[in-house]
């Protein structure tokens, strides 16, 4: 699996919620893409992560 473009060790017990918790991310400040599904951080479903999944966790930054 990949998280933000980096390979991440997959475990069978990994879910989106446990992943965000392990990353230390405050859900209300991020959005998450789980493959082709897009969620506001606070509405991320607690679904299992498969070995080949691609996850993005993003936030707002300054920019023009």
């Amino acid at each position, binding site marked *: 699996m990949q998280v*933000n473009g980096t390979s991440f060790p997959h475990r069978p017990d990994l879910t989106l919620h446990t992943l965000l918790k392990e990353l230390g*991310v405050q859900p209300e400040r*991020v959005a998450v893409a789980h493959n082709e599904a897009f969620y506001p951080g606070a509405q991320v479903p607690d679904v299992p992560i498969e070995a080949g999944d691609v996850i*993005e966790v993003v*936030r*707002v*930054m*300054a*920019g*023009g």
Partner: protein
Amino acid sequence: MSPGTDALIIAGKTFHSRLMLGTGKFRDYGLMKAAIEASGAQIITVSIRRVELNAPGHEGLLDELDLGRYQLLPNTAGCRTAAEALRVARLARALTGVDWIKLEVIPDARYLLPDSLETLRAAEQLVGEGFTVLPYVQPDALLARGLEAVGCATVMPLASPIGSGRGLLARALIETVIDGASVPVVVDAGLGVPSDAAQALEIGADAVLVNTALAEADDPVGMAAAFGLAVRAGRAGYLAGRMAVRTYASPSSPVAGVVRLPDPEVPVSAPGGG
């Protein structure tokens, strides 16, 4: 129409300021907020970036902005293809709850020139997904008409390369984009000084977007205020209708009755006189 009653309407939303601001490169959030305030801008761009996995602690830019006062305009800056821009746009909507997107598809790092074909592809897809799309584009009138046709809310032609401060280099081409446009034309990128913004409005642009010109000014807040004035002046000048350009001079004072030195051919005293 006076500038006071002359609103900018984008996708059915009404704005009284014709200046949009980017939030990048400011020394700190305090300065950024003060500059936004001084400019009068109501539309504010932000970018979307990956959370750093090893250092997820971060300040929240959105906490700093009063989102009730501003229309947030997330961008797809950094995206090199339509596919990347689609992904970032969808993440931006999930993140901010805002369906406005400043679409940037820029494969070229040197001049940061947008890819017209990929931009058009992404725009069509995003409009279909319900986004309000404001694409950053080359000043190409045919492309602009194409973007209008697929439902973009504005077109945003570049004045000169992003962050270059070189001003309205593309003026003649931007005029062709403005001529016949059916959506607001927002001149974006490269404006360096207030007169650049005034000129853009004078030639009929509906708005401008600036960032670096403020963030890299000695006094960003002062420059923000100056751009605010320039945009109002430029728009007022456009509405007032400029004079025709002439090749040769045209005197402003009456040509008749000009005082001349005495003509030596004309006798000082009348013949036969005193």
